[in-house]
């Protein structure tokens, strides 16, 4: 029996909001608030950096200004950079990949998940009479890549967000991304270039859905974003995707679940008198912030499982653990107080500022 997926056909006119929406639907899926989801959208000319690519080094800013190309950074484990315009069909699969395992022969963690999704895209393209092939790294026609992705993982949950080049301006693509990065890429193509004519996006959308249905054995139910997803996307746009701190410097706030402000308290095990005092102060200043703030007490040496099977932990907390910064308070992924007890007023202010 096929599995039911949510289909979101939702485009914002703001690329930064589009990538905030992707993260919102992923957080919603991994929190169990929604089912596996496929989002399809289109957006204006945009260069998309991944978390590990360079704002200065990988983008031709002069060309971006000249052609009015926006720049946004996606949350992703990839080092890749990609470009899309209104001639692309963008996608975001927000899925629990444990379902995929029975569909895959010779399963290889991570690569097989990418491969099966790319195969489903390639299958959709077969309807245009092209010889499309897929591997873990992309979808190809005649050895030229037509689809690229910037994936993100959270335990078994995968956000496979990327783009399919249909009527893309590939000349502009080559101009806005710096040569040193472009040299690493497989040669690109678009469906219109392969067919020698423009292709209506809606036709591709339908073909793509058919390919995904067949390869992944799913059916789609159309939905819109939930209220929680919309609220979270707006928050993410406000505190992350809309800011240079993320897009330029790749520094992101650490949020828990559906965007709660995270207050991580790092203490000794068992807590010392200073640690206990700190825990009491944190508790008292966050009493009226339930629902907005998630307080997590992390005790050194107790392992990541001390907060359940799929805990979220900021890099700042990991760093505090390595550097033995104890006790410490980390708010939204930033080390705010260390080695001593902050006053109630200062702690409260720091938390409210982060909301």
């Amino acid at each position, binding site marked *: 029996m096929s599995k039911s997926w949510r289909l979101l056909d939702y485009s914002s006119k703001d690329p930064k909001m589009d990538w905030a929406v992707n993260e919102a639907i992923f957080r919603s899926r991994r929190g169990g608030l929604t089912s596996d989801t496929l989002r399809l959208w289109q957006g204006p000319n945009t260069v998309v950096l991944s978390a590990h690519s360079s704002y200065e080094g990988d983008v031709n800013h002069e060309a971006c200004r000249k052609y009015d190309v926006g720049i946004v950074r996606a949350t992703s484990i990839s080092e890749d950079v990609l470009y899309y315009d209104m001639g692309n069909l963008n996608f975001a699969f927000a899925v629990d990949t444990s379902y995929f395992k029975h569909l895959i022969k010779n399963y290889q963690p991570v690569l097989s998940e990418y491969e099966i999704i790319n195969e489903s895209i390639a299958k959709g393209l077969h309807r245009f009479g092209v010889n499309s092939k897929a591997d873990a790294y992309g979808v190809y026609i005649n050895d030229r890549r037509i689809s690229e992705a910037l994936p993100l993982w959270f335990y078994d949950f995968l956000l496979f967000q990327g783009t399919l080049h249909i009527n893309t301006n590939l000349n502009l693509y080559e101009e806005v991304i710096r040569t040193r990065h472009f040299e690493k890429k497989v040669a690109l193509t678009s469906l219109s270039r392969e067919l020698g004519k423009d292709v209506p996006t809606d036709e591709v959308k339908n073909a793509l859905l058919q390919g995904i249905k067949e390869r992944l054995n799913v059916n789609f139910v159309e939905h819109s974003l939930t209220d929680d997803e919309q609220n979270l996307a707006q928050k993410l746009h406000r505190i992350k995707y809309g800011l240079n701190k993320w897009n330029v410097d790749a520094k992101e706030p650490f949020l828990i679940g559906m965007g709660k402000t995270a207050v991580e308290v790092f203490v*000794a*095990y*068992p807590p*010392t008198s200073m640690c206990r005092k700190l825990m009491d102060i944190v508790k008292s200043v966050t009493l009226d912030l339930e629902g907005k703030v998630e307080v997590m007490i992390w005790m050194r*040496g107790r392992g990541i499982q001390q907060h359940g099977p799929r805990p979220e932990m900021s890099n700042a907390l990991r760093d505090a653990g390595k550097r*033995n910064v*104890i006790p410490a308070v980390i708010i939204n992924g930033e080390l705010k107080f260390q080695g001593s007890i902050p006053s109630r007023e200062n702690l409260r202010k720091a938390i409210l500022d982060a909301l």
Partner: protein
Amino acid sequence: MEETFYCILCKKPMSPALGIAECSFCGKREKADYVCPSGHYICEDCRISSSDRIIKKVCEATQETDPIKIAILLMKHPAMQMHGPEHHYLVSSVLLAALRNLGKFEIDNSAFEKAITRGKRIPLGSCGLWGACGAAVGVGIAVSVATKSSWASDKERSLSMQATCEALSEIAKIGGPRCCKASTFAAIEAASKFFEREFGINFTSLTSPHPCYFKAFNDECLRYKCPYFG
């Protein structure tokens, strides 16, 4: 409801305490908050200590002559990662502490500072990347500090390198991926044989690391491939 804490040394549930207790790590006596049924207590300073600080504190304070026993105590401390570069200077420090307690060589507290400073220069992963596990180099550092060897020394220099070489050979036999606990045990055992042969020093009743206490916490445990597993 009051949370239950478990002793990091024996895993038994700890109870609130009222009186004075002695720290199981550094020996300091202070008003205790939690003590386990075996009498283990960890002072507040040791609870927040970093790995280099706890190694120094314990090695300065211990009366123990068995370096494996000191190493196991230290490796149970939460500042010690399952695998990490702190094992490099742990090895040299526990060997120096045991040697001092046996009345061998002239070893004062500055020896631990030297061992830690030198050991910190060996990076994480040096085993696979340099072909020289830091635990083995830790044995060489212990010999160097104990014999006051330097690059200008004659026999002491050779002995330091020979000690590293013998420990490295034993660690290499275990295979990988790396286990810093197994490497620590192998390095100390090799050092024990080395000190007995070269200096006639017997580390009295070297504790057997079998079965490894840490196997339950090590996701990458080599299990039956490891000589300390069972």
